[in-house]
């Protein structure tokens, strides 16, 4: 038996009352993705063609840019949550786990910000020639 105090024993084990947060977020982003990616696939299929001008004008509209930004944010957070579980379950070495987790976070944040920036720039400044 260790002689530490109760608070000493639980410290560092994670905060209370947040146990379901990751699980719930994964489901919420799943439902969000269901709606947003369905919108995306159907919108692409009903476009008249895939010429640059068509796509640039389509993407610059608020009714397209907003769901597109939401979709990028939602896809990358869902991917982060899912790949986090994959790493937690299969990477057993502590150092490697920390490194892969850091890499995952850098990757999803950088990618999502890049995607959102591209769409926002197009929506705010119009298509480049």
């Amino acid at each position, binding site marked *: 038996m260790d002689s530490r105090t109760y608070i000493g024993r639980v410290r560092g084990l994670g905060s209370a009352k947040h146990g379901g947060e990751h699980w719930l977020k994964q489901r919420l982003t799943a*439902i969000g993705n*269901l709606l947003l990616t369905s919108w995306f696939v159907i919108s692409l299929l009903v476009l008249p063609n*895939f010429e640059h001008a068509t796509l640039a004008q389509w*993407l610059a509209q608020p009714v397209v840019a907003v769901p597109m930004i939401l979709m990028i944010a939602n896809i990358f957070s869902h*991917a982060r949550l899912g790949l986090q579980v994959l790493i937690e379950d299969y990477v057993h070495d502590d150092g490697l786990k920390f490194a892969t987790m850091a890499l995952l976070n850098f990757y999803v944040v950088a990618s999502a910000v*890049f995607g959102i920036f591209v769409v926002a720039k197009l929506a705010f400044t119009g298509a*480049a*020639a």
Partner: protein
Amino acid sequence: MATAGMMTLLWWLASIGGGAESYATFQKYVVSAGEGATSFQTVSNWFFRLLALAVTFSFFQHMASGIRHLVLDIGAGYELKTNRTWASAAFVAAVFATAFVALFVASRFLGVW
């Protein structure tokens, strides 16, 4: 697979944002290089066509399986037979959705057939 899909999506968006010339470059490597294609571009085209097919299937499989798991999360469908039926149904639905999208895109946009 999902990562490759996400990266291609970002490349596609960036090339639209980058203007007609950068979109043409994207098309040359991903869709079709047309007349005067270098052999690298032809290989790249086929690589991305296969990737598109694989990503489309992965996408629908993940979606169908995800919907199945959302239903399981509310506590329904745990009987062995029901569970097995829906697991197969999700897979079959993914195959059909992939075939539909692939044929639709090929006939309408790629000028195949």
